[in-house]
């Protein structure tokens, strides 16, 4: 965050034998820390929201108060329904993301390292990447049935392409001079790959994880809204159909927390693995 410069008062007309101080024009535009400001703003927003609902400025039906949402979450947790929905969602996203990531890494690294794989794979990946993968869900349901497989496959497909692209661009970004250096020390091709190419591609691959995590979350919810009995997406859709906006917002809150958690895990991972940057 940048801090805009504040206008400094004009220098006093200080004069010493006709000499004046050179006016200062630098300063500002530096990141400044505002500890507590973000938390305060967040709390204020919640308070205003709560007050607006309680004062009937907005209808409870369309926008439930934060306390209503919290109560809905509490009911969900105590009834045991929460774990059923969240558990199934977690299994789906974990399975889909892992499958898509493994396949995407294999394809992307092959494209990056091996020119034949690049010649064959790159047009394929480029052509299929732009398809919104949720559009394939009906087809996948026809192929795999209405069960878990179609949902997991949709997520895996959505994750596969960005992962493959992140992996091969990561390989492409490894400086040639490092590869030449490794060869000059007599490292064999396998060592060049494991000691130079893969660690060099890691930052790009990890950046790809961030993208695919959010794609996986979107596809999870969409797939669960199209055909599932349980899962956060199905829960939100059902709540909407019954005009239970408190439950609906509780589901959205769960998604937000899930997204934050995934983001935190990825940040930790990056900090650990990319300490050298």
């Amino acid at each position, binding site marked *: 965050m940048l801090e805009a410069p504040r206008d400094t008062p004009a220098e006093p007309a200080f004069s010493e034998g006709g000499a004046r101080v050179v006016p200062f024009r630098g300063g500002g535009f530096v990141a400044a820390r505002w500890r507590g400001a973000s938390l305060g703003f967040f709390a204020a927003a919640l308070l205003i929201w709560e007050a607006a609902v309680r004062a009937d400025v907005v209808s409870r039906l369309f926008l439930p108060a934060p306390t209503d949402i919290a109560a809905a979450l509490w009911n969900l947790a105590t009834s045991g329904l929460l774990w059923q929905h969240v558990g199934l969602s977690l299994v789906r996203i974990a399975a889909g993301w892992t499958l898509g990531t493994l396949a995407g890494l294999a394809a992307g690294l092959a494209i990056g390292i091996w020119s034949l794989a690049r010649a064959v794979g790159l047009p394929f990946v480029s052509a299929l990447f732009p398809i919104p993968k949720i559009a394939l869900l009906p087809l996948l349901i026809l192929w795999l049935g209405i069960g878990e497989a179609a949902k997991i496959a949709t997520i895996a497909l959505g994750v596969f392409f960005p992962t493959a692209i992140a992996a091969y661009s990561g390989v492409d970004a490894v400086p040639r*001079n490092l590869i030449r250096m490794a060869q*000059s*020390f007599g*490292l064999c091709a396998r*060592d060049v790959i494991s*000691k130079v190419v893969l660690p060099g591609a890691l930052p790009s691959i990890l950046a790809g994880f961030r993208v695919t995590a959010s794609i996986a979350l979107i596809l999870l919810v969409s797939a669960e809204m199209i055909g599932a009995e349980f899962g956060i997406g199905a829960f939100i859709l059902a709540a909407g159909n019954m005009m239970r906006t408190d439950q609906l917002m509780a589901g959205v809150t769960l998604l937000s927390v899930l997204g934050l958690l995934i983001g935190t895990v990825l940040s930790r991972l990056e900090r650990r693995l990319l300490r050298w940057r």
Partner: protein
Amino acid sequence: MELIVQNVGHAYGAVSALDGIDFTVHEGEILALIGPSGCGKSTLLGIMGGILQPTQGRVLMRGPIPAGSLNPFTYVFQDFALLPWRSVEGNVALALEHHGLPASESARRIEEALTRMGLSEFRAAFPKQLSGGMRQRVGIARALVANPAVLLMDEPLSALDAQTRELLMEDFLSLWLRQRLTVVYVTHNLAEALRLADRIVVLSRRPGRVREIVSVPLPQADRAAPEAQATLAKLHEELWGLIKTEAQIAEREMLAGEAADA
């Protein structure tokens, strides 16, 4: 070991970079390669150490590879070429890992190389945390740990500031005076060549050809002495005379090339 360059030429497509290069690097000498920018010095060094294929001629080695040499032809790079994700120690270890040495032997060699280059206290640092001079010390330590028969240095000091360059050059020289490695040293800096080299190969502008081979008639240990300065200044003038016109033409050539690309 002797390194014999025989009629070596190199072309990038239709553009000839080097043509008919002939000279021999003698055992235990520092041979400097100088010439105007773009004359193919680095290309020639790449060919001499076997990381570039010449399009003409060949490079021969004569004499035994010293026992314990893990990488007979070892490079020191202008841009250091350190792995940013490895510590200083890890970067030096890279030269040893694939040779299956006993762990104690590797550790001993690494320790020795780090100590020789004054890096002991920086062993855990990442390259990013080091100054340019320290990074190149790591580059040299990595080369030394492999115990090379020929050390091929590609403008090793060009990326450093003048003071660091001076310090590193003196350190490298005292290292060399203790253990007379065979060194091929590419530079565009005449003073560097005159301080370090036994002989200086002067290349012409593109396509690079050997214009002259100049011997420096003073032992390296004496070249810092005041009495040596007159001789060195004369040689400097002589070398500059050989290069100046070529450098001027080369400079214009490159600018014309850039203009044509734009």
